[in-house]
């Protein structure tokens, strides 16, 4: 039993100090950063005291990048270089965003993800998002006074693999260590559930600026178990704005508008929508670039009527999620409302009607996701709180493989609890076939062409055999971030080849490296310094963990030689720890990890046999 360590004020033992971690809500309209301070989750404000960072990025010719309020103020003046709602383009191809009419951008089609042409060059949505994340990272580091150990980034629950991968890439590009991608409704449930000590089945209805999620969770004794999730990753407040915008065009008899006027009227549409939350009608007045005056009055009833089918598009997924969870409306104890768009009275009314109860609106719908993410980040960083809890989340969309005839065969069904893995065996179609092409898709539809294509790769080197006698085992593994990796292996008579692919809708490691290098030398120095500090922190944590483990179990499990080997690796790591090359430290960390694998497994054997018998350690001592 370790003695209590008492340290002087300000001299706390380094490995035990609070590790700085944040939760980031990377929203379509606004983004936020929160952290746990003194055991309480708080949103971090900027220097002007505002919590919400508008998710708007403006590129200037001189390479200057503005993010937030200043960029937002220029969105009508410089619409093509001011990117609004970039989240809608994450992990999306041009054909996916093609239906979004009247957006003032110059889209560039590119394999995988659409890109945007700006005065500062062609930008990928990942890069634009990274700019937003960088600002939040800086805000957090200034406010907390130190380097972040990592961040939990939230994503819509209904985001597919490509959109998740793109989000993770953006965080990497912003220099953030991603502790976890967390589903937004689940984050909200953590913040709400822990606050209210809730038990039972809850629905989280999350209508944001560009995405809609519905998640059904069971909360029980600190366990948050997602039973089903559904949604629409291209439906949100922006669509309500679009409806008003189209109505203005029709009402004022306008036709083709240029980019500036389009953005101007979209901005007015959004303001009108917000007005109608508290007023029964609102006046929309704007002067177009040709001097033409637009002056129309929109009533709440008209607004409700023109957005009725958008509401319906949220209620269908909600009923689906209930069916998938095998629950009826009566079994739902509470409905938590999340996302700024749930402020609209017609949304609250529709949800109340469907669930036959008044939805819970007693928390700030803009902040609850970031607050929940911060709580999760605090736990993942290793600053565990006394009261323990567990999160069991699911994948939103089935993962399949293309089979003969262009059909998708589902390998991991939607709403499977993650992490999850499933293997399926396939065989060759022709005699002597030595390669097989594997096409990974996501979605519920039967035809591959109706699903999202995530990756294609070939398994080569299959020994030539009669058709149907090769055994190719394809394994899908979804990790706790909801991200997929795929392995294919030929199982026959000891001949094996394996390929692991990460779906590449996001950026490859190489592309990220290039983008990071594209920054100036100063940024590069920063990065190296950062990598060094991160590596040093990781090394210190590992040394501490191994030290503790040796002290507890070393003599019981290891012989003198094995123990000496581990101690040797620890010495080697300590000797390079204060050096300036992070790669050298990394190698020493890996070496120590290697030497301790057997030890770790032996310890786990001991622990698990104890755990499985339902005993506790003290009974063994």
């Amino acid at each position, binding site marked *: 039993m370790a003695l209590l360590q008492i340290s002087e004020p300000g001299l706390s033992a380094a490995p035990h100090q609070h590790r700085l971690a944040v939760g980031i809500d990377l929203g379509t309209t606004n983004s936020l950063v929160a952290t746990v301070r003194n055991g309480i989750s708080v949103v971090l404000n900027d220097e002007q005291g505002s919590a919400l960072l508008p998710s708007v990025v403006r590129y200037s010719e001189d390479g200057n990048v503005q993010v937030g309020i200043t960029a937002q103020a220029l969105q009508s003046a410089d619409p093509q270089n001011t990117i609004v709602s970039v989240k809608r383009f994450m992990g999306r191809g041009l054909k996916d965003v093609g239906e979004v009419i009247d957006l003032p951008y110059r889209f560039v089609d590119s394999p995988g993800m659409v890109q945007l042409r700006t005065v500062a060059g062609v930008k990928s949505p990942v890069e634009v998002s990274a700019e937003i994340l960088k600002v939040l990272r800086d805000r957090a580091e200034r406010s907390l006074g130190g380097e972040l150990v990592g961040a939990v980034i939230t994503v819509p629950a209904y985001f597919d693999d490509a959109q998740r991968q793109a989000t993770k890439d953006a965080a990497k590009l912003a220099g953030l260590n991603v502790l976890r991608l967390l589903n937004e409704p689940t984050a909200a449930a953590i913040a709400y559930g822990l606050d209210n000590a809730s038990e039972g089945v809850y629905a989280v209805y999350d209508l944001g600026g560009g995405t809609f999620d519905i998640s059904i969770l069971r909360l029980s004794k600190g366990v948050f178990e997602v039973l089903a999730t559904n949604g629409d990753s291209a439906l949100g407040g922006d669509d309500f704005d679009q409806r008003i915008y189209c109505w203005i065009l029709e009402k004022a008899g306008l036709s083709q508008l240029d980019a500036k006027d389009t953005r101007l009227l979209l901005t007015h549409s959004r303001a009108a929508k917000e007005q109608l939350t508290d007023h029964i009608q609102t006046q929309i007045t704007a002067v177009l670039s040709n001097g033409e005056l637009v002056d129309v009055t929109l009533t709440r009833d008209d607004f409700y009527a023109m957005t009725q089918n958008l509401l319906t598009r949220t209620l269908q997924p909600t009923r689906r999620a209930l069916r998938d969870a095998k629950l009826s409306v009566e079994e739902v104890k509470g409905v938590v409302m999340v996302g700024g768009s749930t402020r609209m009275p017609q949304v609250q009314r529709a949800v109340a009607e469907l669930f036959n109860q008044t939805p819970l609106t007693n928390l700030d719908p803009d902040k609850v996701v970031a607050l929940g993410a911060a709580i999760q980040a605090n736990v993942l960083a290793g600053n565990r709180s006394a009261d323990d809890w567990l999160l069991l989340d699911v994948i939103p969309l089935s993962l399949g493989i293309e089979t003969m005839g262009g059909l998708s065969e589902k390998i991991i069904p939607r709403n*499977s609890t993650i992490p999850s893995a499933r293997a399926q065996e396939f065989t060759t179609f022709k005699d002597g076939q030595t390669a097989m092409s594997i096409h990974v898709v996501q979605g519920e539809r039967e035809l591959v062409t109706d699903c999202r294509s995530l990756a294609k790769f070939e398994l080569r080197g299959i020994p030539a055999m009669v058709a149907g006698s090769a055994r190719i085992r394809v394994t899908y593994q979804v990790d706790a971030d909801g991200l997929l990796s795929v392995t294919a292996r030929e199982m026959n008579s000891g001949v094996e080849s394996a390929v692991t692919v990460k779906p590449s809708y996001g950026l490859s490691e190489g592309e990220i490296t290039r983008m990071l290098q594209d920054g100036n030398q100063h940024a590069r120095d920063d990065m190296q310094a950062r990598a060094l500090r991160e590596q040093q922190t990781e090394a210190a*944590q590992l040394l501490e963990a191994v030290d503790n483990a040796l002290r507890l179990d070393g003599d019981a499990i290891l012989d003198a030689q094995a123990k000496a080997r581990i101690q040797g690796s620890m010495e080697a790591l300590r000797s390079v720890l204060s050096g300036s090359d992070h790669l050298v430290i990394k190698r020493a960390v890996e070496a120590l990890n290697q030497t301790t694998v057997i030890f770790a497994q032996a310890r786990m054997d001991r622990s698990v046999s104890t755990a499985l018998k*339902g005993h*506790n350690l003290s009974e063994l001592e």
Partner: protein
Amino acid sequence: MRVDVERASRSDGFFPMKSLDFQQDFFQLFELSPCFAIDNAALDQRYRDLQSQVHPDKFSHLSESEQRLSMQWSTRINEGYQTLRSPLARGRYLLSLQGVDTQEETNTAMPLDFLMQQMERREALQDALEAKDIDALDRLSDTTRQDTRDLVRQLGVQLDDTQDHLAAAGTVRKLRFLEKLAEEISSAYDELDS
């Protein structure tokens, strides 16, 4: 002093589970006797206890090898839980432990009365879809649930009492039919809803 395993693993920061041992079957993992009749509440509780110890969220600040072990264990426990929670999967799994293949893909020889009944159900489903008749769909859904309950009861007797593995394999194949039908009914609801 009483220190439970979980607490101890926290303070010293090491993954508390051994490397994946596929020797241990799901019943052993969940501390249940290998019978069809199981205590669902005990299964749920055991599931939560196990995940509380192995879930990746508990190890994200530790070394890569421990994170990998945690993911593998957590995956395994999820698979075991899904297998034991569903009567069809549990029955199939129990039979596989006995070396009995349920031949769901290959054996299409079904009793005639069962096939006739299934054809009627599918026709009813088509009719309900064409008529956009939610009430008919509800009725069909109820009937399917009732049929499933009856077959599950039968499977329990075959597996736990009479030990008739061949008959049990037949019941599993029937249940698979009903599961597919239930999936189609669910899609039909989606279709009528949109």
